C-alpha cells in the first residue's frame, strides 16, 4: 500500500511539473507578440516596449521561468489579455460549472456501467448481445456526434430539455448523458471482462457449493474482486469526462471551463489558455492518482499488508 502510494506520487509531481514547464516554454515560443494582442496592432512600438517591460518579458528566460513558478505557487497566473482580470478569477468562475456537469456525468456513468457490465458479464443471450452492441456503437459515437443527435431528438422535438445554457432545471441532463454514454461503455467493458475472469475462479465455485445462490455469490465474492479494475478506469474516465466537457460545453453552450478555453484560444488570450491547460492537467492527474489509491485500498488481495 505504501509502495503503491509512493510510486503514484513519484509519477504525479514530475508530471505536473513537466506540464507546467511545457506550457511556459510553449507560451514563450509564440511567434506573435502578446502586447500586440492586448494593445491592438496599431499600437506604437514604444507602448509595446513599455508593456513588455512592465510584464517582465524583457528579462532573461530563466528569470521569467522562476517568476512564473513563484507566481504559480501563489496561485497568480497573470491577467487575461481580453478582460484584464486575474486568470485565477476567470478560471474559478468557470470551474464550478464544469465540475457540476462532470459530477453529474460521473454519477450517470456509474449508474449506466454497472447494469451494463452485469448484463455483458452475467446475462444470457440477448442481454449480452444488447450490452455489447451498445458499447461498440458508442465507441463510434463521440460526444460531438451524440450531442447533436440528442439535441435533435429530444431538445428540438420535445419541450422538456432546453437547447442550450445551464440555467434551466432540465439543462444538466442532455450534456451529462452526452458525456456519460462513451465513458460508461468503456467502463462497462473493463468491468465485464474482470467479472468474466472472476466468474471462473474456484472460490466462486466453493461459495456455490456452500449453498449460496448464483447472484448472491456473484455479488458478494466476484464483484469486490472486479471492483479495483473498475475504479482505476473510473479515474481515467474522470479525466476523459473533463476533457470531453470541452466538446459538450461547445455543443450545449455550457458556460464552463471548456467554453472559456475555446474562446481564449480563438481570442489568443494566452494567459487564460495557459492557466486552463494547467488546471485541466492538474485535475486529470489528481483524479488518476485518487482512483489508483482507491483501487489499491479496495483490492481485497492487498489487504493483508501484501
Amino acid at each position, binding site marked *: 500500500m505504501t509502495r503503491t502510494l509512493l510510486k503514484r506520487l513519484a509519477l504525479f509531481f514530475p508530471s505536473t511539473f513537466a506540464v507546467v514547464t511545457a506550457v511556459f516554454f510553449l507560451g514563450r515560443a509564440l511567434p506573435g507578440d502578446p502586447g500586440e494582442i492586448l494593445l491592438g496592432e496599431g499600437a506604437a512600438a514604444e507602448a509595446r516596449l513599455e508593456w513588455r517591460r512592465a510584464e517582465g518579458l524583457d528579462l532573461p528566460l530563466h528569470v521569467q521561468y522562476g517568476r512564473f513558478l513563484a507566481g504559480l505557487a501563489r496561485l497568480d497566473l497573470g491577467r487575461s489579455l481580453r478582460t484584464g482580470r486575474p486568470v485565477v478569477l476567470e478560471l474559478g468562475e468557470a470551474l464550478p460549472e464544469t465540475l457540476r456537469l462532470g459530477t453529474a456525468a460521473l454519477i450517470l456513468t456509474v449508474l449506466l456501467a454497472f447494469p451494463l457490465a452485469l448484463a455483458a458479464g452475467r446475462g444470457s443471450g440477448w442481454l449480452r448481445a444488447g450490452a455489447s452492441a451498445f458499447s*461498440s456503437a458508442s465507441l463510434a459515437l463521440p460526444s460531438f*456526434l451524440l450531442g447533436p443527435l440528442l439535441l435533435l431528438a429530444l431538445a428540438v422535438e420535445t419541450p422538456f430539455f432546453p437547447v442550450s445554457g445551464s440555467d434551466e432545471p432540465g439543462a444538466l441532463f442532455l450534456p451529462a448523458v452526452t458525456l456519460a454514454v462513451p465513458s460508461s461503455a468503456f467502463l462497462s467493458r473493463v468491468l465485464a471482462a474482470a467479472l468474466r475472469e472472476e466468474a471462473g475462479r474456484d472460490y466462486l465455485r466453493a461459495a456455490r457449493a456452500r449453498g449460496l445462490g448464483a447472484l448472491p455469490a456473484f455479488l458478494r465474492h466476484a464483484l469486490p474482486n472486479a471492483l479495483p479494475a473498475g475504479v482505476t478506469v473510473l479515474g481515467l474516465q474522470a479525466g476523459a469526462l473533463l476533457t470531453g466537457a470541452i466538446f459538450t460545453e461547445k455543443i450545449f453552450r455550457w458556460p464552463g471551463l471548456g467554453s472559456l478555453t475555446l474562446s481564449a484560444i480563438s481570442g489568443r488570450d494566452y494567459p487564460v*489558455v495557459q492557466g486552463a491547460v494547467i488546471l485541466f492537467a492538474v485535475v486529470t492527474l489528481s483524479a488518476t492518482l485518487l482512483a489508483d489509491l482507491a483501487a489499491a485500498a479496495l483490492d481485497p488481495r492487498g489487504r493483508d499488508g501484501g
Partner: protein
Amino acid sequence: MGEVGPLPRTSLAGKAAVLLLLLWIFGAAGAPLLSPHSYRSQDLARRLEAPTADHPLGTDELGRDVLSRALYGARVSLAVTAAALLLSLAVGALLGTAAGLLGGSFDLVLGRLMDTLMALPGILVAIAVLAYSGRGFVPLVAALSATSWVGYARVARTLARRTAAEDYVAASRAAGAGAPHILLRHVLPAALPVLLVQAAAGAASVMVAEAGLSFLGLGVPPPYPSWGEMLASGCDTLLEAPHLAAVPGVLLFSAVWALNTFGEGLARSLGPARRLRVDAL
C-alpha cells in the same frame, strides 16, 4: 504482408467495413471528379437549401454545395489520419527500439516522458499544441501525433529488447555487425508487423480526434472543409437545416465504425499469429 487482404473479411460486419472504407477512399480520391460544384464557391441567395437535383445534399449556411464539401472533407480526414498515423508510428518505432537497444539513461528519460504523456488525455495535449501553434495541416498532424507515438514506442521497446536477446542477434554481433545494422536488419523487421497491426487498430481513434479538433475550430483552416467543421456549423443551424449536421455526422459515424471494425478484425485475426511468428524467429 501479402496475406493481409482476405483475413478480416470473415464476418458480414468485416465485409461491410471493407466496402465502406473502399467507398470512402474512392470518394476522397475522386473528389475533384465526383463533386458537382466547387467546395468553396458561395451562393448567399441559396443558403440552407434542402436537397435538390442541382445540390443533391443541399447547401450550407454560405450557400456552398454540401456534397462537394463532404467529398473534399473525406480527403482531409483521410490525409490527416494517414499522416498522423505514419508520423506517430515512425517516431514511436524509432524511439522505442532505440530505448530498447540502448537502455541506460536514454531509456529511463524516455520512460518518464512517456509516463507523463500517457497520464494526460491526448485530446488535451493536442488542443494545447494547436492553441499555441495556430491552425494548419502540419500543426494538426503534429498535435495528433504528440501523444499517440507513445503506444507504438512502448510496444517497439518491448519487441526490441526481446529481439536483442535472440541468439541470431548475438551471432550477428559476434560477426561484427554494428548497432545500425542490428536495428535495421533485425529489430525493425521483427517489430514492424506488430506495429502495423497496432496502427490499424488505432486508426479510428485518430480519425475521431481529427474530427473532434476540427469540430472545436482547430482543424485545417477555412475554406478547406472537414467533417468536424461541417458538423460544428451544422449544429448552429440544427433547427432550420438539420441535414447540415446529419450529412457529416452519418459519414463520420460510418467511417469510424468501419475503421474500428476493420482494425479490430485485423488485430484479432493477425495479431496473435504475427506475434507468434515474432516469437518463433
